[in-house]
C-alpha cells in the first residue's frame, strides 16, 4: 500500500448577493426563503462536503448614490440561518462570514460558541474586516477605521474570542476572563461552556501581505481567490511557508480557493454552457455598470455592444477610502482602462465582451471526468487543499456537481466516501485546539 492519498476538501458557497448569481434563469429561486438554504445545504451534505459558506453584507451596494438594482439584493443574517440549518443537517460544517469592524468580541464569540453547541461542533467563522465609512453609517461606532487598524483590530478580536472560548475549561467551571487591549477591554465570565470542537473553525479570506500573515498566524482555513494554476501554487507555497514562523505545521491550515464549475456531456458543450452563463452574468446593463466603476462617470449613453469610450477615466480621489465607486475599489482607473483598451483593440471586443473577458473567474469547465481530474490535480500538485464551490444558480446550482462529479472523485480515491467524524474539524482533518486557559 502507498501512503494515504491527499484528499480534496469541498465547501459550498450559497449564491446570493454577487454578480455571479444568474437570477434571470427560470430555474433560479428565492435567495431568501429558508427552503433555498435547506436545499443547497442538504445537497452539500449529500455530497459529503466539509462546510456550507455564507457571505455577508452590512449595507446595500450603491452606485452613483443609488442602490444597486441589477444583481441579487438582500440576504438573511448568516449566523441565524446557520442555526436553523443545524436542525436540517447532521454533519455539514456551517460557516458564517462576520465582520470584526462592526461587531464586539464578547457578543460574537458567544454567538459562534452557541452555533457550535447547537450544531454539535460544526461552526466556522470567516473573519473579514472593513475600513469602510459607507458601511459604518449603519453602526454605533460609525465611519472610518484606518486601513492600518483593520488587521490589528481583527487580530485582537480573534485573540479575544479565542481567549473567551478557552476561559471555560473542558470539564470545569468558567474562569474569570480579562483582556485589556488596544481595541478591546473585556472582563467577566463567558456564559458558554467549551464547545464541541473546542473552538469554532476560523476561516480567513484576505490576500494582502497582512491578510496572509494573519491567516498563517491564526486561521484554520484560507478562502483564497487564486485558482489559475501558477498563481494558486505560488499562493499556496507562500502561505504554507509562513506557518513555521508562527510555530505551526503545514497541515494546520487548509487552503481552499473559490471556484465555479460548469459541466457538460462533452467539452464543447460545457464550454458553450460556460459562455452562456458568462453572458447572463454580464448583462448589457451590468457591462455599462462595470465600465462606470472604472471610468467614474455616467456612461449610460454608451452602447454595450459598441466600442469602449474614447475618453479617459476620472482619476480616483482616494484609493484607500473604501468603495468609492460603489461596489469595488479601483485603485488605478487609468491603468485598468489602458489594459481594457488594449484587450478590446487586439481582439475586436465590444464593451460587454471586454467586461466578460476581464471579469471572468477561474472555472473548471468540462466533462464530469475532466473536472474531477482537474480538481484532483490541483490538490496533488499543492495548488490547493480543496475548493469552495460558487454555483451560479440558487438553490440547485450544485445538484449536477454532487450527482455527477463527486462519485468520480470518490472512484479516484480523491474524496471521502463517508464522513469520518461529526465535527467540522474532523472533516478538515484539524485537531481540536489545545486548551490554553
Amino acid at each position, binding site marked *: 500500500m502507498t501512503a494515504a492519498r491527499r484528499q480534496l476538501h469541498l465547501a459550498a458557497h450559497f449564491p446570493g448577493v454577487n454578480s455571479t448569481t444568474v437570477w434571470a434563469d427560470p430555474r433560479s429561486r428565492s435567495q431568501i426563503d429558508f427552503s433555498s438554504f435547506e436545499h443547497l445545504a442538504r445537497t452539500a451534505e449529500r455530497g459529503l462536503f466539509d462546510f456550507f459558506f455564507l457571505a455577508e453584507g452590512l449595507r446595500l451596494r450603491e452606485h452613483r448614490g443609488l442602490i444597486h438594482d441589477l444583481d441579487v439584493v438582500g440576504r438573511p443574517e448568516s449566523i441565524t*440561518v446557520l442555526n436553523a440549518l443545524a436542525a436540517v443537517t447532521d454533519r455539514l460544517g456551517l460557516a458564517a462570514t462576520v465582520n470584526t469592524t462592526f461587531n464586539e468580541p*464578547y457578543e460574537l464569540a458567544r454567538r459562534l460558541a452557541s452555533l457550535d*453547541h*447547537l450544531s454539535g461542533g460544526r461552526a466556522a467563522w470567516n473573519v473579514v474586516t472593513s475600513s469602510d465609512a459607507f458601511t459604518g453609517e449603519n*453602526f454605533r461606532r460609525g465611519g472610518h477605521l484606518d486601513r492600518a487598524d483593520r488587521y490589528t483590530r481583527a487580530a485582537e478580536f480573534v485573540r479575544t474570542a479565542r481567549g473567551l472560548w478557552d476561559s471555560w475549561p473542558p470539564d470545569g467551571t468558567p474562569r474569570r476572563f480579562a483582556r485589556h487591549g488596544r481595541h478591546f477591554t473585556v472582563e467577566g465570565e463567558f456564559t458558554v461552556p467549551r464547545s464541541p470542537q473546542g473552538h469554532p473553525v476560523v476561516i480567513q479570506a484576505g490576500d494582502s501581505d497582512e491578510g496572509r500573515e494573519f491567516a498563517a498566524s491564526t486561521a484554520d482555513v484560507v478562502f483564497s481567490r487564486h485558482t489559475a494554476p501558477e498563481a494558486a501554487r505560488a499562493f499556496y507555497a507562500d502561505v504554507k511557508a509562513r506557518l513555521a514562523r508562527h510555530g505551526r505545521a503545514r497541515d494546520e491550515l487548509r487552503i481552499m480557493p473559490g471556484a465555479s464549475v460548469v459541466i457538460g456531456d462533452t467539452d464543447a458543450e460545457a464550454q458553450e454552457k460556460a459562455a452562456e452563463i458568462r453572458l447572463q452574468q454580464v448583462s448589457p446593463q451590468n457591462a455599462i455598470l462595470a465600465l462606470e466603476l472604472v471610468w467614474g462617470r455616467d456612461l449610460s449613453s454608451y452602447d454595450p455592444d459598441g466600442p469602449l469610450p474614447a475618453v479617459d477615466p476620472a482619476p480616483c480621489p482616494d484609493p484607500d477610502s473604501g468603495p468609492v465607486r460603489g461596489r469595488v475599489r479601483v485603485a488605478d482607473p487609468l491603468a485598468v482602462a489602458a489594459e481594457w483598451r488594449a484587450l478590446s483593440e487586439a481582439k475586436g471586443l465590444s464593451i460587454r465582451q471586454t467586461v466578460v473577458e476581464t471579469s471572468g473567474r477561474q472555472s473548471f469547465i468540462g466533462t464530469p471526468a475532466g473536472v474531477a481530474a482537474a480538481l484532483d490535480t490541483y490538490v496533488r500538485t499543492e495548488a490547493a487543499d480543496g475548493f469552495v464551490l460558487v454555483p451560479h444558480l440558487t438553490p440547485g446550482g450544485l445538484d449536477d456537481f454532487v450527482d455527477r462529479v463527486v462519485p468520480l472523485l470518490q472512484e479516484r480515491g480523491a474524496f471521502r466516501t463517508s464522513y469520518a467524524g461529526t465535527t467540522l474539524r474532523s472533516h478538515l482533518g484539524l485537531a481540536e485546539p489545545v486548551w490554553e486557559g
Partner: protein
Amino acid sequence: MPATRPLHLAVALDGPAQYDPAYYVALARLAERGALDFVTLGDCFARPGLDALAVLARVAPATERIGLVPTVTTTHTEPFHVSTAVATLDWVSRGRAGWAIGISTTEAEASLFGRRPAAPADALWREAGEVADVVARLWDSWEDDAEIRDTSTGRFIDRGKLHHVDFRGGTFSVRGPSTVPRPPQGRPVVVVDGTAGVCREPAARYADVVLVRAGAPEQAAALREDIRRRAAAHGRDPDTLRVLVALAVDLGVGEAAPEPGLAAGPPLAGGGPHFSGGPVELAQLIAEWHSCGAVDGFRLAPIAPHRDLERIVNGTVALLQHRSLFRTFHPGGTLREHLGLARPASRYAPTTRTPASTQAGGAV
C-alpha cells in the same frame, strides 16, 4: 364583549442553562402540541446560557406553528444587527418570530463589552425605545414588492421601493435600508415586559404584546387599561395590543393545593406573584381572569420546565380546550395570526402612509 375575546397563552422556556438543542426542541414541540401562541426564551450576557435567538433559530425548522420569541437586549448590541437577526428568525421560521426587548443594566454586562459604563434603567429604556423604532423602520425599509426580477430592464429590485431610514437617536444613528428583505410578518411581534414604570411607555408605544405582573384580576385590569390608554395617546389602536399576565407557575404540588389562586410562596426567578397549585386550578384561574376581561392571556413561566409544561399542556390547556375557552389547533401559520394581529403595511409604501405612522418615531 370581553368574554368573546380569544385567549392567548404562551410559555417561557427559561430555567437552568441547557446546551443541548434537543432540550429546547422537545419543550417547544410540547408547547406546539398545546396550540400555544408562542414560547419565550430569556437572555443575559452575564448569565450562563446560549444566545436565545440562536436557540430559537435552531428550534424553528423542528417546529411548524408555534411562535418563537427570544429576548434580545439593546444596550450593548448594534440596532442594525438586532433588526437583521430578528428579521432572519422570521424568515427561517416562516413568520413565527417575535422579539422580547431587553436592556442590560449591570456593570457585569458592561464590562464584558468595555464600550460604555452601566447606566440607569430609565435611560436604557429610552434607548431601547429608539432601538425598537429604528428596527421597525428597517423592517419596513423594503416594501413588500421591492423584488421585481424584471428581465426586460435587467433590474432585480425596484430601488424606488427601498428606503434609507436615516434615523438619529440619542446614542446611535442608522442610515439603512436593511440588508434583509421585509420579513414574512412585515414586522415580527415585539414583546415588552411593561411591569416596571420605566418600560410602560416604550411598551405602550412600540410593543405588540405587553407582559404585566399582577396578583389579582383587578390589578391586571388596571395595568391593561393604563397601557391601552398610553397606546391610544401615541395614536395607536389599543386593540392592536395584547396584554398578557406573566405568571410563574409551580405545578409540582398537584392536587395537594387546596385553594385555586396565587400563592404567596418564595420568590421565583423574575420576582412577582406566582401560582402554586395543580393544572386544574391554573385553568380555573386563567378562565376567570380572562372571562372578566382583565387580560388577553398569560405568559406562564414554569419553574420546572419539563414537568410543569407537560402539566400545562396535558392538564390546564386540555381543560381550557374542553370548555371551548382555548383553540385546539393553530388556524394560521404566523405568530401575528395566532395573536389576531394584522400584518402591518410598510410605513414607506405610499398608499398606506397615515398620520399614525409618520408621528411614530424620532427619525429626522
